């Protein structure tokens, strides 16, 4: 019953208002499906790309379906510029075919019985263009994405990367007012992913309307988006510029994505008492915009982010020196990451530490080895915990 497409509200808007490409998205979304509830506010400016990042089941695809009109809101509103697309309170619901939302689905959803050219020409034809004119639009769009040679191919004959770009061309050829991309690169292997990412970046840069990119790949989000919105369990947990989110993760999930240790705790003088046990001396580094923890009132809830490469490992307790954080631990696991070894150390607090392979060999680390960890106070960045 939650997948109601709001037939009774449908009649309220017969025709999509012409609202130009400079319309922004303004949404206050509240929708339930089964036992899951998505509750999130959203603003996307014209020409801006918002990446929606989150683990599986966070509600990313549900959010995209709401914007596309494939799922109706239970409460709240969705506006594109001056036009209301969905508002249960005002009894307005604009059907998907009248929204002008270009969607690139995760599984592409190319029409199997049509050639790549006719897939791309589908939108222009639906808009009333004659077959020949629609095909001309399609050819231009395909050419732009380097797909000219496969224009006559059926989807089954296309490679994954080609199919992905045909899906992108098809969405763009319909002259959408907003662009919605659902994990556009998830199904590709590494090589075609790089090609398609380039095509995607170009397309997003040229697209004048608001764009939304749903992904669980932080690299995709960081390289393609102007702004990040992190969803977890149907709620927004962090929002901001990619660099800010990467530097000051608000949750464990985000910290893991950007490869940082994250410790929630309470400020006590120049120390932070960590929730999981242990204390850390943290300091803000000059010039990177972090507020000095000393400036925060004592007892504030803060987060401390630590780069795994900033932690040092010793077999003996290091002599007193510049590092102000020293604590014992036990190696739990070792993992090869590219040319580095990620060492998982249990302790108070536990930490992921990045070492070079020679360093691991020299220290003779293996699961169970007792070690000492040290960390400069300047490498432990404390910032206020987001209020939720």
């Amino acid at each position: 019953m939650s997948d109601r497409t709001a037939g009774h509200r449908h009649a309220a808007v017969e025709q999509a208002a012409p609202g130009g490409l400079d319309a922004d998205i303004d949404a206050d979304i509240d929708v339930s499906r089964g036992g899951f509830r998505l509750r999130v506010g959203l603003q996307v400016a014209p020409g801006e790309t918002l990446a929606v990042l989150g683990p599986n089941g966070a509600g990313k695809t549900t959010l995209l379906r709401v914007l596309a009109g494939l799922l109706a809101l239970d409460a709240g509103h969705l506006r594109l510029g001056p036009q209301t697309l969905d508002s249960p309170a005002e009894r307005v619901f604009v059907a998907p075919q009248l929204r002008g939302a270009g969607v690139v689905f995760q599984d592409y959803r190319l029409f199997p019985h049509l050639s790549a050219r006719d897939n791309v020409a589908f939108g222009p034809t639906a808009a009333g263009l004659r077959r020949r004119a629609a095909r001309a639009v399609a050819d231009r769009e395909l050419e732009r994405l380097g797909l000219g040679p496969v224009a006559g191919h059926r989807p089954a004959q296309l490679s994954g990367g080609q199919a992905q770009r045909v899906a992108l061309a098809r969405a763009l050829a319909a002259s959408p007012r907003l662009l919605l991309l659902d994990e556009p690169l998830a199904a590709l292997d590494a090589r075609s992913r790089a090609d398609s990412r380039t095509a995607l970046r170009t397309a997003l840069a040229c697209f004048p309307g608001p764009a939304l990119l749903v992904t669980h790949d932080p690299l995709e989000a960081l390289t393609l988006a102007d702004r990040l919105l992190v969803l977890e369990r149907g709620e927004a947990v962090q929002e901001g510029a990619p660099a800010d989110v990467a530097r000051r993760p608000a949750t464990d999930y985000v910290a893991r994505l950007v490869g940082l240790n994250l410790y929630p705790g309470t400020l006590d003088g120049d120390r932070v008492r960590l929730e999981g046990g242990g204390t850390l001396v943290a300091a803000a580094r000059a010039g990177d915009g972090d507020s000095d923890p000393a400036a925060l009132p004592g007892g504030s809830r803060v987060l401390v982010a630590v780069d795994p490469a900033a932690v040092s490992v010793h077999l003996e307790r290091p002599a007193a020196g510049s590092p102000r954080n020293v604590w014992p631990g036990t190696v739990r696991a070792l993992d090869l990451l590219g040319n580095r070894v990620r060492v998982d150390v249990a302790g108070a607090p536990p930490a992921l530490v990045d070492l070079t392979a020679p360093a691991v060999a020299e220290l003779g680390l293996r699961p169970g080895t007792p070690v000492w960890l040290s960390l400069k106070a300047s490498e432990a960045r404390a910032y206020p915990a987001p209020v939720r």
Partner: protein
Amino acid sequence: MDRGSRTAPRREARQRAPWPLSVPALVAAAFLLLPLAAVLLRAPWTGLPRLLSDSGALDALRLSLVCATAATAVSLVLGVPLAWALARSALPGVRVLRALVTLPLVLPPVVGGLALLLALGRRGVVGRPLEEHLGVSLPFTTTGVVVAETFVAMPFLVVAVEGAIRSLGPGLEEAAATLGASRTATFRRVTLPAIAPALVAGAVLCWARALGEFGATIMFAGNSPGRTQTMPLAVYLALETDPDAAVALSLVLLAVAVAVLVLLRDRWLRVPAAS
């Protein structure tokens, strides 16, 4: 890549079937094929042209082809939208409706014919007002044959098409909607082409079932030569007067059945190539 490792598993896989399986399998195959062979063996091959050019046989054949084709056409026009509604509607009661609609598949056709009489007969629930107000009478007419055949055969089409639409999923239709296509355009340009193989297979099955329809037809439309006497009825009747003619007519129906099977096998029932 060496030859030995590639051929060895294949030889191993070709085991002989155990006799508790192979013997019944052979009996079953013989049981299904023997009667058909008997028709071929006993067919009056020399008298065939005379028997089939007999005007009664030709009339029955023509009537059968016309009625089966008309019934298929009606089934397509009404059945495809019904299949779409059954596959896509989220309304409560659709599941019950789906079961009821396919009831004619398992219902004895004679019962179907009786039911049609009670509904559309001269004193039927709908038949009486139909005749009183519009002067339309269906039973014991050629139209009645089409009605009876449609009743029995349409579920074959509905089941095939509904399954295809359901397994197609809403994904392509959603994609078409986001590209600006109306619901009608989406159905015409996306849904129909995507289910074309199932549509053709369903239509052929529907046509074949209509062509062979006996029970409902004889109950609802009777057995009047030239008007309602289709091939199956002619076979049944000829058996009492001219057994050779009955075999000759059966031979024609058998040929049609084989043709349908070949058509379905070659074009639409092939195992889809891995995509």
